[in-house]
């Protein structure tokens, strides 16, 4: 049995349906991240948003970046954020107010920003751009280690410095109240 090329009732291709599903999951869980009251659940929703975004990277022709997204964001940064949440939770935390007093103007500003970006995207002539291009791991590796070696090394030094700085900032003072 073979599937039809387009979905019968909706008139969409299967890849478009999957794209829209990923997009909806990403936007929905991103909204949950900023709106939910319990910050642990915000952190878990953030992981879902990152996973859906990794799917979108695959659609945009960059499977290597999608793999890096899973490793870096889902594997490393989310764990870091969840640990930080657990270290800084107070009993009064979930019960107290989640939003600042400027939340309503902030919502208006964010909506205006989204509208402006959408209008700018729709109004621009993108005829210079071509078809979707697939970036293979082989080409990306050649590019990264031939033409972008210096930025690559600079990022590694930056990460080392950040890790040392993070350990220094977060460690307890010896003999301090801590």
């Amino acid at each position, binding site marked *: 049995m073979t599937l039809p090329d387009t979905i019968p009732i*909706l*008139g*969409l*291709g299967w*890849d*478009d349906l999957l*794209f*829209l599903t990923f997009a909806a999951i*990403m*936007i929905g869980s*991103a909204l949950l*991240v*900023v709106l939910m009251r319990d*910050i642990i659940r*915000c*952190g878990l929703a*953030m992981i879902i*948003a990152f996973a859906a*975004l990794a799917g*979108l*990277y695959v659609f945009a*022709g*960059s499977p290597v*970046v999608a793999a*890096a997204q899973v490793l*870096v964001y889902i594997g490393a*940064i989310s764990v870091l*954020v969840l640990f*930080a*949440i657990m*270290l*800084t939770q107070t009993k009064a935390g979930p019960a107290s107010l*989640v*939003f*600042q007093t*400027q*939340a309503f103007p*902030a*919502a208006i*500003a*964010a*909506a205006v920003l989204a509208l402006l*970006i959408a209008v700018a*995207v*729709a109004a621009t002539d*993108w005829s210079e*751009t*071509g078809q979707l291009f697939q*970036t293979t791991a082989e080409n*990306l590796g050649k*590019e*990264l280690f031939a033409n*972008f070696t210096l*930025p690559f090394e600079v990022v590694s030094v*930056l990460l080392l410095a*950040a890790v040392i*700085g993070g350990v220094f*900032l*977060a460690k*307890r003072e010896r003999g301090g109240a801590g």
Partner: protein
Amino acid sequence: MLSFLDNVSQSLDAYLILAGLLFSIGAFGFLARRNAISMLMSIELMLNAVNLAVIAFGAFTPGLREAASVIALIVMGAAAAEATVGLAIVIAIYRNRKTPLVDEYDAMRQ
């Protein structure tokens, strides 16, 4: 029924509008939340939105191609560094002030 969305996964506009939406959500979270870690998570959302825009431009612009993926990977590295230092600072402040809420960090105002 939804045929206007046909080939939506092959159009640059869709990716850019998604990136704009995600960035706006992150901006709202950064401006509106009281918890310092929520603000850091919102920053991560905004960084991811920019990454999505970069990847989309790289996929559709013949002159960019692999360079866009390299840019995205470097942004990820910078974001990881930012998250490490930012969360360490939040934990250090929490140890002194016993609260993760940014509007109670008012020592420099007095």
